[in-house]
């Protein structure tokens, strides 16, 4: 496998981490909590989309929209029931509640949808002139292949990132979000409804989770109730890597993590690739203690 192949594979994996990491980083930036249930919301999104597309035979785009709506509602419900009552509690209490929600979603999925893996349909293919299916494009006379899923994932990732950046930097709600992330009490004094702002953040994060779930399962098409948990942890790592709370950081962190993982597998050892990834993470954090693009927090004396 050439270096270029490895990098392309890494970007493809990394762009999925990035899109999941966006959800982590947004919620963290505003609510200052690690939403460990995010990975499981992704799983729910993927299941909803799977059933909409295969059992009910709906158009892929409609299926994704349904998944987004369901996940957004789910996100708001979780926030209202489990996180909102803990607004004034220590952040660790919220972390544990999030873990409880994660267990809940996984076990609910197990009961509802059985542990048997479902194979996610590939939405991103086209029928060539000779009737065969095409799942990607060939470059340089076939020596380099990029699948449509990878292209779509990267594209969606960039679009979402740009949209989020514009949304956060302009407009009333975006301003409110930034204010909440700076200082909740002051924001409240300025007439910002902090609770609504946080709910909206969760809604957006969960809606994005549905997209992430669809893209994750399009790239790696087995769907089980634990599908979201490991990518969730990796994406969380990616978010910290890039500087948690920073939207471009999530993208950069995700892509870097994906590329390192694939390169470690290809050139060091498939057995120790995870160890290598985490070792690189540690080194980076030692050099830049608040992640690649994280804001340096000045300590108040």
């Amino acid at each position, binding site marked *: 496998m050439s270096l270029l192949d490895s990098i392309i594979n890494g970007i493809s994996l990394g762009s999925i981490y990035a899109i999941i990491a966006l959800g982590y980083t947004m919620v963290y930036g505003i609510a200052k909590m690690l939403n460990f249930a995010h990975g499981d919301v992704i799983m729910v999104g993927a299941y909803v989309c799977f059933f909409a597309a295969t059992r009910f035979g709906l158009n892929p785009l409609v299926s994704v929209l349904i998944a987004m709506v369901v996940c957004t509602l789910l996100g708001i419900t979780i926030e209202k029931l489990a996180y909102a009552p803990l607004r004034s509690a220590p952040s660790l209490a919220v972390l544990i509640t999030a873990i409880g929600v994660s267990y809940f979603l996984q076990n609910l999925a197990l009961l509802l949808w059985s*542990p*048997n*893996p479902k194979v996610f349909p590939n939405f991103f293919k086209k029928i060539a002139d000779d009737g065969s299916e095409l799942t990607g494009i060939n470059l340089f006379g076939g020596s380099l292949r990029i699948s449509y899923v990878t292209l779509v994932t990267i594209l969606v990732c960039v679009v979402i990132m740009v949209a989020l950046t514009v949304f956060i930097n302009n407009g009333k709600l975006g301003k409110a979000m930034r204010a909440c992330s700076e200082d909740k009490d002051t924001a409240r004094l300025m007439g910002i409804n902090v609770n609504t702002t946080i709910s909206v953040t969760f809604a957006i994060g969960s809606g994005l989770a549905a997209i992430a779930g669809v893209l994750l399962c399009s790239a790696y098409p087995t769907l089980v109730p634990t599908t979201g948990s490991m990518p969730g942890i990796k994406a969380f790592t990616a978010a910290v890597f890039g500087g948690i709370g920073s939207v471009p950081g999530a993208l950069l962190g995700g892509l870097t993590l994906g590329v390192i993982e694939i390169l470690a597998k290809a050139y060091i050892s498939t057995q120790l690739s995870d160890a290598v990834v985490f070792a690189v993470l540690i080194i980076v954090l030692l050099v830049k203690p608040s992640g690649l693009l994280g804001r340096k927090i000045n300590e108040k004396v």
Partner: protein
Amino acid sequence: MKKILALMLVAMLALTLVACGEKTPAETTAPADDGAGEETAQNLTFKLGGTGPLTGGAAIYGLAVKNAAEIAVEEINAMDGVHFELQYQDDAHDAEKAVNAYNALKDWGMQISMGSVTSTPCVATAAETYADRIFAITPSGSSTAVLEGNDNQFQMCFTDPNQGSASAQYIHDKGLASKVAVIWKNDDVYSKGIYDTFMAAAPGLGLEIVSDTTFQDGNDTNFSVQIADAQSKGAELVFLPMYYTPASLIFAQAKAVGYEPKWFGVDGMYGILTLEGFDTSLAEGVILLTPFNADSEDARTQAFVAKYQEKFGEIPNQFAADAYDCVYAYKQALEDSGCTADMSREEICAKMIEQFTTMTFDGLTGDGMTWDATGAVTKSPKGMVIQNGAYVGLD
């Protein structure tokens, strides 16, 4: 605040302790008939228990075993002779929880055991059944470690090493390939066991291992590196000692990069065709060794598959078939040895060891099965190849 919390926790604790003492009324499949032949029927109803992952990532295997065992017990309880009360407890594929689950079964009064479904928990419960002298036969705990250091733990599936050397032999005998790649899961006892013996057998049979790559839990979705390694080193055949879920991803990703070697799987590959939504053309030509085939013409197999499908809406896999066989093997052994339910566990255990090492059993997963003193079964895996979306016998 802290006091309230402490009180609450203490109350919870007290409650749990009390509940611990009580008998847990868990999933039991009681015999259907209570009236007929009271005296004898009472004496012949045995408490059969087992642990398996009913929740978590490995739940698919545990549930298959539990479901199939329930079907077998239902059938047997409708017949004359030995009856069973069945209870399955969740071990979440974890040795610690398996021991807890085993102890719950012991409190319930389990007399004979179906061990644990997966290997690592089964090693843990085997030590317990050995200490308590409860006879156990696991449908699917295939590691050799399960049988080590005890005389009363038996297996219904063949051991992993058996499969590894059989696979190498098969590839050699049929002249399938000389350059072979192996992709295996290096944090899994099952995969590692098969891999080790395959690698030991391969050089003697003229098989050249050109690529040897691994994956782990949580790192089991992107196989681009492993596939590219096998492809670039010119492997004609890729050996996949793993379960079918990661294998389905490998097939799809290999196709996406245009790599089409011969694929060779083991019994864990069985079930890939019934994966919901799986494009069976990806698995076209895959060769696998399996003791069980749901498409078989055999009348008993067909009856079992039909019943399983009706009850659980799925095609049973080889885990289910092995579990079904376990219950029937128990029926045969208990009846032949003349065990009664009022005998002590030690007595039953001694009789079962004697019976299992001398009897021959015909089940869904093979005819004429026998067991040696270590508890390993002798049955030979059948070679199958996937053609037009169905398993077809090779010999």
